[in-house]
């Protein structure tokens, strides 16, 4: 690698721009956390500018957990994220493995069948009608089953499996292993990057999903966190017209609670993740 060690000005300007970019990304998140930790009186006194809080309080968080049904809603979100993602991974991997095998009969047909929904979709209303007719309305399974497999993620996974060295597969075949055994004991152990990648993609989608919950769930206790938060933010937007409502600090506590858990997952998967997305993304 060429180093260009003398080029100080160049390095300095590159690094400065990068630091600026980093700050642009980091600053809003920091500010939200700051506001959520500031006592509300202090926030009002400073006219909204609390870059670094001088006084800390968890009052806003305490209040947030007192919102009606909040504990159930939080648990719902955790449940659909954990259990839903496990179902997603399981079904996607089984399907992608079969599709990636060259000796699958009618392989062309099945591939076509699985990729067409990438190009054409029914739209929100017809999907809603099907979800309603299959009796999922107002149950948490409406947030898991209708998004069981994402065609795009299936495609990435299939590409990953198809690129695994065929000799690995052949040798297992010759030793007499069945397909399930090959998948679970030979292929999956070398597929950690793709499992981490699709797990993260599905997991983030579940944690952040808002519309399915908005459309399919009417019971207050079955809502997910994002719906609760959105409702809370909008209740407060009428604050500009003097209605007594959740304070800015309470809202920001809600924002932090709805964002932090999923951000915390990322560093654990990061190592596998970058590898996985590159493998899948190049010819997505």
């Amino acid at each position, binding site marked *: 690698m060429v180093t260009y060690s003398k080029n100080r000005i160049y390095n300095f300007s590159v690094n400065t721009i990068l630091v600026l970019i980093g700050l642009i990304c980091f600053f809003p998140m920091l500010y939200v956390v700051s506001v959520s930790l500031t006592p509300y009186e202090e926030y009002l006194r400073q006219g909204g500018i609390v870059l670094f809080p001088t006084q800390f309080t968890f009052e806003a968080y305490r209040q947030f957990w007192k919102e009606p049904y909040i504990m159930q809603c939080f648990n719902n979100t955790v449940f659909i994220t954990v259990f839903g993602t496990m179902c997603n991974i399981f079904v996607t991997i089984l399907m992608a493995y079969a599709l990636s095998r060259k000796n699958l009969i009618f392989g062309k047909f099945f591939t076509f069948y699985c990729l067409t929904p990438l190009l054409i979709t029914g739209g929100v209303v017809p999907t809603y009608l099907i979800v309603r007719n299959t009796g999922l309305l107002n149950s948490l399974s409406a947030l898991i089953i209708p998004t069981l497999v994402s065609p795009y993620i299936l495609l990435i996974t299939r590409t990953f499996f198809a690129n695994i060295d065929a000799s690995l597969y052949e040798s297992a075949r010759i030793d007499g292993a069945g397909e399930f055994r090959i998948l679970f004991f030979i292929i999956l152990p070398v597929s950690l990057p793709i499992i981490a990648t699709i797990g993260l993609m599905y997991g983030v989608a579940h944690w952040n999903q808002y519309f399915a919950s908005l459309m399919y769930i009417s019971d207050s206790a079955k809502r997910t966190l994002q719906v609760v938060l959105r409702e809370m933010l909008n209740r407060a937007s009428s604050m500009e017209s003097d209605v007594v409502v959740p304070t800015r600090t309470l809202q920001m506590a809600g924002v932090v609670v*709805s964002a932090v858990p999923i951000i915390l997952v990322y560093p654990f998967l990061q190592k596998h993740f970058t590898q996985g997305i590159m493998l899948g993304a190049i010819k997505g």
Partner: protein
Amino acid sequence: MHMPIRKIPEKSLRIQWYRLKPQGAFMLMMLPGLVFYFIYLYLPIGAALLVSIKDYGVKSGIFNSPIASPWYKHFKFFVQSPYFWPLLRNTMLISMAKMLLGIPLAVALAILLNECRVNKLKRAVQTLTYMPHFLSWVVIYGMCFVLFSETNGLINDWLRSLTGSTVPFLTNPSVFRNLIIGSDLWKSTGWSAIIYLAAISGIDPQLYEAAYIDGASRAKTIWHITLPSITNVIVLTLILRCGTILNAGFDQVYVMYNEGVYSTVDIIDTWVFRTGFENFNLSLSSAVGLFKSVISFIMIVTVNQLSRHWGESLW
């Protein structure tokens, strides 16, 4: 001694049993997925075809509702309605702006990260720029409140002390459209840079060494080596985005907009959603959704045909 060589039979019509043996396992593996695909991805297409040519009534359901007269009533209504052109314009404007600003920004970020020689800084910036990708639009909406609100938002506080006036980011239609575009860039640029970073990391380092020996400055190597080497990836992403030009970001717009800014940010998808779930005109909503889906489909196929001339194809 002459050994007769047994001829290996060419592909025969006989069933190749060894090929059939694992098929049962394959079918079992695909079964849950295939059933899911049929019910939740294919049936909605069928339902869209039916509902959009009928006058859907909640009581009579998909099959018993009467056919609209003429069957293309809802399509015609939409195309002739006063919403059609504003919706199309908003959709295209937002989508194009996101694409034409988003791709260069992501490429620039990838190049900057690649030029950075301080590994810790590089990794920190990379992690920070990915992070917004994990935030939901509801969360970002909350952030916009606290940053851009006219009464007590941080940015407006700064503007007030610097210039003495404030900008109604959340209520002025044309400013709000920029906020929509800007927040999308903030959320997705770091993430979209991954693919360009991957492409850059695949460039042969010898090219840079040769350029160095020839006396090229680093800025010049960006222009003459890095950019030309990733042009194909840039073209590919551009093509992909062109195929989805009618998706201007439903999730984002629906979560963030309000009635005051419909004139600039109401897009086809949000209109479809409102028509279906707020005005309960399911047939019209399905028809417009289907209309959009078909146009998108035609665009993706066309764009892919075009891209074959560039030697890049999606399938």
